[in-house]
Structures are given as structure tokens and as C-alpha cells.
């Protein structure tokens, strides 16, 4: 091995260790946060950020890994929220309602995917623009869920912020674990192949239709569970809130900003979005979506890998400096 590759290899091992250690350290740090007694508001922000991360990681399984962006993930969030809400009000244990929420969302994903995935073309993407709107309209008219005025959850147990916080954290962690399991499995390899070249993937034996349906179902299930956790926390949900197009937009902005098609990109994006969003909406209520739109354009034009892509570039720069000569990478 030449000196250059030795350094690269050493950098590789170090990088790999760091890649797993750093996020795990951060994750465990998040576990201790409440002990630091940052106050109810900060905990709330972190909780909501965990939910954002969950949805972001979920979206990425379909939009990033498989290359099928959906513009309507709010539909799963909302369906999950209402499912949990109805369950909890019906006396079901909240923690049982979350898997149910996930299941209902997964089922809904099949209804969208079955007609659209088998066709060549952008049908899926466009159909997703309409789906959350259609569901929103239907839910607004549905009397037994409160219609447009929303639906309230009444629980006998007192509100315990820490319980919600840890549930959110667990969900975010679960999302990341599932994301990793998918990514490094045979299933994930198939998804990557589909993303790169669906025709060639099919010619190599990958069943694109079933794979996409499965990825969509996993992503929908996770998002549904996130919606359920949110519903219990908020204790009040309405169609205009959980099925809003803005929410679909937020869910897809996070992975794009953080780095689509990576494990930690959506986490980064979710974290950044969750923390900044509060500030941004407070200070520049009219600007923030404009900024995000411009950000998406800049990202696609100049650094499609998002923040993770930027970090990768910086790392390569550092490696080159260490090697001591400017070699083409």
C-alpha cells in the first residue's frame, strides 16, 4: 500500500468507528437530558424534534433509499394520529395503539402504492400530492371524528412530560435502527438497485413492484406510529393540523436538508429542522418556507447530498491535507 492509501485506510477505520460511536453517544446523551432539568419548553422542543426525526428517517426509507419521493406523508402521520386518538379514547392502552396506528398507515400505503408503483413514470409522486388533501377533505366531513373542529383525547392518567419524551426518543431510535436494518440487508440492496436503475434492477432479478410496496409500508408504519405518539401528547388533533400539506412538506424537507439516501442524514436534518423551526417561525413567520424552498434548490443544484454531503466533502479535504499532497480523489 502506498502512503496515501495507508492514511485513507486508517482514516477509514477511524471514520467508521466515529460514524457509529458519535451518534450513539449523542443518543445516550439525549437520554440524560431531562436530568439536566432544562425546563419544560426545551424538553418539549426536543420531544418534537424526536418525532420529526422519526418521520424524517421513515420518509427516507422510501424517498431516499428507493428514490421514490412522496409529497404526501402527512396522510400517514394523520391516520396514525387519529387511530391512536380513537383507541385511547376507547380505553385501549396507548402503547398498544401505536402499533395499530402503524398498521393502519401501512395498509393505507398499500392503497396508494398498488395502483401507482406498477406504472412507469412519475405517477406515484404526483398521486401523493393529492392523497393527503383528499384524506383531509374526507376527515373534515367525518362526523364521528369531530370533523373540522377536531378531536380531543381524554386520558385518566395525568400528563407526564418525561414519559412522552422517552417515548419519542425510543421511537426515533427505533426508526434509526429499522433504517439501518433495511439499508444493510438484501432488501436494502434491492432498494438501492431500484433507485439507481429500476430496469437494470429488474433485469438482475429484483422485483421492483413488491420492493417498493414493502419500503412504502415500512416508511408509512413508522410515520403512523409517530403520528400516534404526537396525538397522545397533543391531546387534540384536527384534520387541518395533521393532514396539512405543510406537514408533508416538512417531512420531506428534513431528509433533503440532512442528506437523502443516508442513515444519519435524515437524523441530522430532523434535528436541525426541529431546533431551528421554532426559532424561525417565531422570528420570521413569513420567511421560513421561502428559505427552505431556496435551500432545497441550492441543495439540488450544488450539494445533492445535503449536510451529510458537505460533511463528506470536508472529511475528504481533511484527509487530503493529512496525506500532504493534493491528489485527485
Amino acid at each position, binding site marked *: 500500500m502506498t502512503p496515501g492509501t495507508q492514511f485513507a485506510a486508517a482514516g477509514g477505520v477511524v471514520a467508521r468507528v466515529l460514524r457509529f460511536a458519535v451518534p450513539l453517544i449523542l443518543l445516550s446523551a439525549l437520554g440524560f437530558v431531562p436530568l439536566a432539568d432544562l425546563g419544560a419548553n426545551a424538553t418539549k422542543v426536543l420531544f418534537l424534534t424526536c418525532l420529526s426525526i422519526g418521520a424524517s428517517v421513515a420518509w427516507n426509507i422510501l424517498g431516499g433509499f428507493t*428514490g421514490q*419521493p412522496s*409529497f404526501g406523508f402527512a396522510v400517514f402521520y394523520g391516520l396514525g394520529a387519529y387511530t391512536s386518538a380513537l383507541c385511547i379514547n376507547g380505553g385501549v392502552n396507548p402503547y398498544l395503539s401505536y402499533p395499530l396506528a402503524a398498521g393502519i398507515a401501512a395498509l393505507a400505503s398499500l392503497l396508494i402504492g398498488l*395502483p*401507482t408503483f406498477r*406504472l412507469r*413514470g*412519475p*405517477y406515484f*409522486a*404526483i*398521486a401523493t*400530492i*393529492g*392523497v393527503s*388533501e*383528499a384524506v383531509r*377533505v*374526507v376527515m*373534515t*366531513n367525518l362526523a364521528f371524528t369531530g370533523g373540522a373542529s377536531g378531536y380531543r383525547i381524554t386520558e385518566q392518567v395525568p400528563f407526564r412530560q418525561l414519559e412522552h419524551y422517552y417515548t419519542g426518543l425510543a421511537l426515533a431510535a427505533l426508526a434509526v435502527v429499522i433504517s439501518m436494518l433495511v439499508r444493510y440487508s438484501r432488501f436494502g440492496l434491492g432498494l438501492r438497485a431500484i*433507485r439507481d436503475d429500476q430496469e437494470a434492477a429488474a433485469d438482475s432479478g429484483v422485483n421492483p413492484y413488491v420492493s417498493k410496496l414493502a419500503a412504502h409500508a415500512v416508511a408509512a408504519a413508522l410515520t403512523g406510529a409517530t403520528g400516534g405518539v404526537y396525538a397522545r401528547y397533543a391531546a387534540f388533533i384536527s384534520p387541518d393540523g395533521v393532514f396539512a*400539506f405543510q406537514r408533508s*412538506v416538512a417531512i420531506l424537507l428534513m431528509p*433533503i436538508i440532512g442528506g437523502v439516501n443516508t442513515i444519519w442524514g435524515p437524523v441530522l436534518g430532523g434535528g436541525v429542522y426541529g431546533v431551528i423551526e421554532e426559532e424561525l417561525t417565531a422570528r420570521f413567520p*413569513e*420567511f421560513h*418556507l*421561502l428559505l*427552505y*424552498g*431556496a*435551500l*432545497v*434548490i441550492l*441543495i*439540488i*443544484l450544488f450539494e*445533492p447530498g445535503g449536510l451529510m454531503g458537505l460533511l463528506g466533502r470536508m472529511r475528504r479535504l481533511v484527509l487530503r491535507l493529512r496525506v500532504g499532497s493534493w491528489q485527485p480523489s
Partner: protein
Amino acid sequence: MTFADYLNLVISAVLLAGTYAAVAVGMTIIYGVMKIVNLAHAGFLMLGAYFVYEVHERAGLHPLLGVALAFPAFYFLGILVHWALGRGIPVSDEPTLPSLLLMFGLWLVLQNLGYLVWGTSDRSILTPMTFATLRYGEITIPKIGLVVFICAVLSLAALEFVLHKTWFGRAVRALIQNRYACRIVGVHVQRTARMTFGLGIAFAGAAGGLLALLYPFSPDFGRPFLLRSFVIIVLGGLESFSGVFLGALILALVETFSILAIPSSYQPAISFSLLVVALVVLPGGVAGVIARKRRLA
């Protein structure tokens, strides 16, 4: 319901279809030639509406004149956008993920620029024509609807002319069919693509202006029309222009007559349901079915 009532509904549907066709055509052109799903179409519709509104408010120009002005104005806007974002809009044979997301980002920017400049409240363009109707016995035709319909049909006819009788139009049609052959034959692919994008945006802006005459509008008002355009394209067959008329007619008829069966608050869900039905039953659209029948005959 009397026969006259039915006739009135059919007339409404036909008038609506003309408008929908004009709205959809901008997206069809861009998709057909460049395989780009222009999500920002909704944003340009909205800008078109506000353009005509501002021109009417500030310069006192008749809205129809505003629509006519919108054409060249938005054509150049389209060229500008394509030039600025060209890196992310490669001319390709298939819809690409980056182009989809790029157009989405553009849509966000346009929509929120709209909110910034014009706020969230609805606006309308009111002219003496707006509430006038023509009456023939029991048949009522809203004057403004008729005027918009005529404009839409005229612009589509002009498009047909351009596509079939000019060199540019021939280049566009060639590009739709076979990109590689175009290069060999001497068609300047990048330039034609840019002009096509401009044309698509021109139609979006003008159609938006026409819509502004019919409906109140706010920065988000493009979104339902985005979905409708796509439903029309799918119904009509993703890459045929005559299909656009057919698709528009079907959508307009379904929407108009659905009022009889479903409460009006469910209206927005209709386009989506129609889309799903169309995808399940008619991949390739109605035009595809007709083409298939013709081939087998």
C-alpha cells in the same frame, strides 16, 4: 331536474373543460419534451393570476389584455428560470429525482414569495363581465365563463398551429419522439428545450390569469389545479395533446355532475379519486385505449 338544468350543467362542464385544458397544457408540454414534472406549475399559475390582477389594478388594463401580456412575460420568465436552474434540469428520457425535487423547491419559493408580497387573503378580479350572463330561454351561460373558454380554445389552437406549422414546433415534436435522432438531424436540443420550458410557463401564467377571472385566488390556489392538470394528463394519455382536451372534458364533466351526488365539501377529493381510478383502469389514458383499439382493428 329538467332537461334545461342538465343542459346548463353540460355547458358549465364544457366551459370548465376549456379552461382546465389551458391550465394543463403548460404542464404537458414540459413533461412531454423534457420529462420533467413541473411541480412549480402551481406557482406559475398563481403568479399569472396576480400578474393580471396587478396589471388590472395598477395600470387599469382590461384583464384579458393582461392575460395576453402574461404570455410573453411568462415566456421570458420561463427562459430565465430554465437558464438559472438548468444545471438541475438535465434533458433526459425519464423523470429524474433531482428535477422533481428541484421543481418542488421552486414551487415552495414561488408560493411563499406570493405570501410575502400579497399576504394570505383571497383576491378577485371583478369586471362588469363577472356576473353577467347570457340567457336563451332556460339556458344560462355565464359571460365570463364563455369569454375564458374562448380564450383558452384560441390559445390552444395557436399552440397546435405552432406545433404543426413552424420549425420550432416541428423541433419540439421531434424532441418528444427521439432525443438522439434530434441531435443528429441538427435540432439544437438544449435551446429547444429551453424555449419549450418558456412556452410551458407562458401557458401556465396565461392560464393562471384566466383562472383569476373565474375564481378568487390566494398564493396557494395553484395546488388543486396542479393535481387537476395531472389528472387530465393521465386521463388523456401522458404525452398527447389531443388527449389533454379529452382528459379535461372528462374531469370537468365528473366534477360538474358530482354535485348532484356528493356534498360539495367533498369536491377536492374528486380529482384525486379520479386519478386513482384512471391509473388503475386506464394506464396510458383514454388516448392510449383508443390507440390500442385502432392498432388491433
